[in-house]
Structures are given as C-alpha cells and as structure tokens.
C-alpha cells in the first residue's frame, strides 16, 4: 500500500516526489532525488496502523497569509495562502543564548548567538502574530529564554496585549536555582511552563544533555508548583536512552499532579549536520510510544486510549486525557467504550458541563470539602477539574521524514525575526549538511 506525497532531498533540499510504503506494519517515507539518489526512513511502526490513524479535517486558512505561492511548498512560508491550517501556537524565540549545549537541540544555541530581539521588536512580532493569526497561544522559546533578565517583562507585554495563554519553553535550570524567579514569572501572568524533562534518572540527562540534571528539574518543579504555574513535562524520546522510562515519567507526573498538568513526548528528530542519514534504529514513532506507555504503565494506559489530533495533521501527534485519582491511579477521560453514539440526555452540552465544573471548583476553593465529605461523584467532578493529566506526543519532521502534506496542515508556527510565520518543522529544517531553508535567513528587521 503506497500513498503519494512530496518531500525534499536531504542533500540538496529540492522538492521531490515521495511515497509512503507500508511493509509488514511499518511505514516508510521513500523518495528519490535525480541527483542524490534514493532515501528511505521509517515514520510509523506498528498499531494503530498508519492508514487508520486519521481524522479528516476541513482546511482552515491562516487569518492573513503574508506570502504568495511562488516556488511551492516548503519554500514560500510566511504563512503562504495555500497553507491549510491556522495558527494554534506561535513559537517566539526570544534569545539564541543558552546555558546548556545539548547534542539533541534543534534551536541553534551557541557562543556566537546573535543579539536578543529588543522588547520593541518583540512587540512588533506580537503585532504580526495578531495580524496573521489573532490571539493564538504564545510559546516563548529560544535558546533558553530564561537567559534574558527581562523575560517577565516580555510575558507581561504579551499578556497585556491580550494573548490569553502564554507558555514558556525552558530547561528549568534558572527557575530551580533562583529563589523568587518562578513567582516573578507568575506575577507577570505566565500560564504554563513547557519543561524539558527527559526522564527520571540522571543517566538519561548525562546522555542527552551532557550532565546530570534531575535535581535541578525537581527544584524547578517545586518552584513552579509553589508559584502556581502549570507544568507540562516535555521528554525528548531517544531509542536506547529513555524509551524504557516512559511509564516512570507518567508515574512521576501523576505523583506531582496537579502542579504537573501534562506530559508531551517528543520523539527525537534529526536537525543539523549529519554525515550519514540516521538509521531507522535511531528513530521512535508515535505508535511505539503509545504501545510502550501501555507496557510500562502496567496497562493503566492503553494504546487504544490515544486519539489523533483535531488541529494539526493526524500523523503529527496523539493524545489521551486522564484524571489522577486520589491513590495516584489514572482514570481515562475518553469515550470509545459503550455506545456514546446514541443521542445523549439533552440538558447540557459538554462545554457547559466543563464550565460548570470549573465554576463549582472556583467557588468552593477556600473551603474545600474535607476528605470524607461530598460523595464519589463530587470528588470525581472536582478531581477532573483540578487533577487532569494530558498525555500527548508530537513527531517533528526532519529532512529525511518530511511529508509536505503534513507540513501544509501544521498549526505550530515559528515567528521568524522578520515577522513571517513559518511552520515549526520548516523553520527548523536543515539539509544533511546542516544548511537551513529559513533559520538564519529571515533575520529581520520586521517587515510590515
């Protein structure tokens, strides 16, 4: 079974035809460059199958496309008028400096980092985001954003301009180290932290980040919990390094609920310079993560709990939601069992029910019922609003795995220094030799 799409040549980055080839349950992206030969990389292994994993979507255009279609995907990003999804999250790199130098990082972080964008430039970029995509979610990224001393000011700026959800992507080192820093971010209005958290053992950090970091991660989690900022743990999953620790990460997250609100696994992808294409053994795919979670959680989580995304392209991610119950166990919040297809009793839609739950929780906040009061239903409703754990995984695409159909449906957009919005995987795309298409080539100033 083959499915045709397009990709790029990993060597020269020319757009070339590609197809998905499924052999014995594994699906490969296969392509041939007239100049550089054939390439084949695994993109999906096992069940649920590549073809079943889909959720048809009606394309949604960007609010204001900034670029026209001239050379064709992926060379017209801005977003172009042929892009098939609006922005859900705008990723803004506020610095290119970093206090770690990780082998697996896709954001460039080096000693010769360019100067940080000024608060004024940052404000102009926010304006561009509003023009292109409205008040979508903002993720402050880098580099390591906490290298900037004025970070709380940037958070405040984004919040005061009306962005409802502002998230910080960080390694957590400064947050754990510097007393009062987390609460300064909270005071500025920060909603959530995307915390790089590769596992529950120091060996994992030594392999991936070059040094033991577990204690620092724990310190960051304590500080964020204290400050009341929601935490999403973000493990980069690398075969042979931490793919045996996924269940332990979930247990750790459950123990730290409700401070930890979610776990977002990112299978490793290969940006930068590689003399040889990465071997398939160096890749891990979404169904493998779902199945490993089932194995390593003793069946508490199941691969069948996961659903394709409603926003980005189906093959880019998977997610399942749980409530962490009092004993630390997980109850799935999902409805494939039974017959949810029949018309429901009509008194309230799901959204109203959720809003009701939130109000009820907020109202009873200061004098929460003591253990033993309220019944199981009350407790579950309260837990569902306070102790939800969202588990998801997102597969980024590199020059070997890039499927332009997926790229066209991307909803996570990097805001380039010149104000263009560029799908995350296109922005970070590099050839095997490390040449970029966008990063470093759209340095501004901000174009109106």
């Amino acid at each position, binding site marked *: 079974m083959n499915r045709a799409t397009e990709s790029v040549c990993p060597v020269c980055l020319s757009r070339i035809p590609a197809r998905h080839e499924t052999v014995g349950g594994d699906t490969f992206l296969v392509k041939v460059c007239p100049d550089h030969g054939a390439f084949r990389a695994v993109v999906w292994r096992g069940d649920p199958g590549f073809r079943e994993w889909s959720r048809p979507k009606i394309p949604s255009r960007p609010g204001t496309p900034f670029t026209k279609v001239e050379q064709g995907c992926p060379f017209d990003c801005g977003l172009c008028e042929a892009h098939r999804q609006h922005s859900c999250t705008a990723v803004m790199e506020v610095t290119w400096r970093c206090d770690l130098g990780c082998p697996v990082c896709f954001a460039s972080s080096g000693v010769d980092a360019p100067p940080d964008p000024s608060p004024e430039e940052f404000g102009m970029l926010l304006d561009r985001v509003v023009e292109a995509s409205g008040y979508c979610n903002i993720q402050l990224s880098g580099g390591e954003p906490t290298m900037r001393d004025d970070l709380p000011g940037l958070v405040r700026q984004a919040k005061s301009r009306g962005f409802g959800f502002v998230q910080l992507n960080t390694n957590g080192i400064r947050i754990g180290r510097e007393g009062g820093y987390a609460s300064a971010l909270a005071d500025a209005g920060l909603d959530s932290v995307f915390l790089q958290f590769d596992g529950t053992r120091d060996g994992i950090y030594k392999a991936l980040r070059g040094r033991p970091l577990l204690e620092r991660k724990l310190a960051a989690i304590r500080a964020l919990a204290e400050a009341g900022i929601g935490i999403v743990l973000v493990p980069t999953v690398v075969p042979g390094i931490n793919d045996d620790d996924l269940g332990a990460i979930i247990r750790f997250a459950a123990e730290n609920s409700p401070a930890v609100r979610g776990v977002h696994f990112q299978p490793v992808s290969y940006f930068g310079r590689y003399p040889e294409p990465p071997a398939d053994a160096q890749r891990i795919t979404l169904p493998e993560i779902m199945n490993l979670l089932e194995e390593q959680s003793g069946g508490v989580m199941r691969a069948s709990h996961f*659903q394709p995304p409603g926003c980005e392209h189906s093959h880019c991610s998977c997610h399942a*939601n749980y*409530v962490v119950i009092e004993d630390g166990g997980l*109850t*799935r*919040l*999902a*409805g494939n*069992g*039974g017959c*949810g297809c029949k018309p*429901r*009793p009509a*008194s*309230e839609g*799901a959204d109203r*029910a*959720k809003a*009701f*739950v939130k109000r009820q929780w907020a109202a009873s906040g200061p004098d929460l019922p003591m253990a*033993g*009061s*309220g*019944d*199981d*239903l*009350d407790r*579950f*409703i309260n837990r*569902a609003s306070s102790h939800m754990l969202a588990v998801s995984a997102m597969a980024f695409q590199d020059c070997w795995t890039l499927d332009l159909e997926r790229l066209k449906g991307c909803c996570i957009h990097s805001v380039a220094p010149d104000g263009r919005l560029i799908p995350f995987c296109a922005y970070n795309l590099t050839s095997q030799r490390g040449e970029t298409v966008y990063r470093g080539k759209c340095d501004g100033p901000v174009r109106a």
Partner: protein
Amino acid sequence: MSVIKVPEADVSGWKCAACGEELVSMPVELEYLESLFTVELPACPACRFVLIPEELALGKMHQVEQLLEDK
C-alpha cells in the same frame, strides 16, 4: 462517601411498594465506562431498590458521564 447531596423534598416520603419499607441511605455502586463510584443513596433496606432523583441524574451523574465521554 457520606452525605447525600439531594434536596430532602426530592427523597422524603418514598417507600418501596413491594416491600413496604421506608427508604434508608446506603452505599450504592454506580458504574460507567470502566469507572466505579460509590455514593450514598436512598434505597429499600429489604430489596435494595435505589432511588435516583431527577436532579442527581441530570446534574452530577450527567456531568460525570460527560467527563468520562470527553473527547
């Protein structure tokens, strides 16, 4: 599990017709989509016929149903 959160008006004055017994509060198990909840509800002490008042069915129970059905 303890007090029942339904207005007295809804549950008072009910008797089991078959057994002739006044309903008393007792722990009842409710199950939905692999989740089990124990709730104190009025029921017949003899035959365990349970009363689910309208407000409970359309209120909390409906909320829990929708949470478990959440997509």
